[in-house]
């Protein structure tokens, strides 16, 4: 199941559960319009909606008896810390201070709690090739879908060879303060520094990303020198 297909099924399901009987059927006729797979997906979900006796009605804890829970607790062996060495090393050298000043007195760490509704910037993409030459795009925290559709977090208009929905994904991972580039689920391929991107790869300052006819250069704001706290 691709996230795009699921999004479609999910939104039809959520609308359909608000409707009853004939209204629901005519809604499904209208939105599924001959897509029998889609119709089947939604109808099988509706058949499983609010199922009585589902294990998900309660929680795993409340369903176990106390002996089971006690043995589960007693037998559990805590797994070793799965953090890669590199991360641990980096963390040890990280200075645990909220706001620090550089030599020239500028702040290079700031408190994230002060933002209210603002989603703070973490980096930019700058178009260096293609019809949007010179334009910049804002990269925000966590997942940024790149595509032609206006629903995308990073919407690149005008290049018909860029897929509408999720051609690529740029992820800023706040925990480790790092950036990643992943190929999307659309047909279009992604190149990172001229190499075909097969799977998620780290994204570094001034890396070049190519999608369709467009070339983008990545400029981080967060990284070794700055981090929102």
């Amino acid at each position, binding site marked *: 199941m691709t*996230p795009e297909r699921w999004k479609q099924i999910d939104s039809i399901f959520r609308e359909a559960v608000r409707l009853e009987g004939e209204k629901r059927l005519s809604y499904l006729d209208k939105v599924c319009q001959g897509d029998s797979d889609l119709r089947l997906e939604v109808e099988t979900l509706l058949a499983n909606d609010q199922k009585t006796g*589902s294990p998900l009605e309660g929680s*795993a*804890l409340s369903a176990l*008896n106390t002996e089971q829970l*006690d043995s589960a607790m007693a037998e*559990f062996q805590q797994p070793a810390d799965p953090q890669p060495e590199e991360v641990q090393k980096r963390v040890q050298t990280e200075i645990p201070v909220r706001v620090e000043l550089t030599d020239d007195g500028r702040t290079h760490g700031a408190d994230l709690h002060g933002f209210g509704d603002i989603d703070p910037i973490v980096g930019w993409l700058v178009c260096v090739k293609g019809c949007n030459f010179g334009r910049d795009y804002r990269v925000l925290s966590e997942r940024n879908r790149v595509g032609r559709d206006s629903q995308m977090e990073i919407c690149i208009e005008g290049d018909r060879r860029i897929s509408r929905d999720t051609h690529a994904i740029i992820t800023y991972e706040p925990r480790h303060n790092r950036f990643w580039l992943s190929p999307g689920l659309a047909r279009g391929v992604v190149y990172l520094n001229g190499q075909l991107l097969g799977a998620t790869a780290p994204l570094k300052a001034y890396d070049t990303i190519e999608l369709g006819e467009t070339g983008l250069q990545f400029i981080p704001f967060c990284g070794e020198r700055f981090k929102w706290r």
Partner: protein
Amino acid sequence: MNPYSEESLQVTQVLRELHDRPELFNERLFPILYQVMRQMARRHLQGEQHARTLQPTVLVHEAYMRLVGSDQDWQNRSHFLACASNVMRQILIDYARKRTSAKRGSGAAKVPLTDQPVPEGLPLDTILAVNEALNRLKEFDPLKEELVKLKFFGGLTIAEAAKVAGVSLTTAKEHLRAAEAWMNRELSAAAPR
């Protein structure tokens, strides 16, 4: 343990730092949470003769009250509830895996009858099936996965799960309904009854 003990001060401190240093969860928070929840599970086992099942709130919420006390910082509370849910998930899956493989393997005869799930309880296979379905759900809808995880493994109410996941109650309810319909379908396909 009172809210001013060394452990509880550690927990409060770790919760505050967790956003920036997630590795603290495995290093420091996990062992403390696990220890405290285990003590509480034991106390309930000994004390409540009639209660054959534990209310999930007993473990997760009491652990919070004991370790953090009346700290009203919702961000701390959210971190705590999310962490406690992860602890419970890991413990239960580990247990269910061991038990179900023991039953299937050569050691079948060694598993005493008392280890069988109570008739009205949840079979351990089901816990594993839920876990696997959740892993699949995460690939295309991480928000739904998180909500189901918090509710099912953490025993949180929908309102709490919504707060931890950072969505409104209405949104959480809608997502959970769709997620549970999907999970029910997956579970019935995996193990037809």
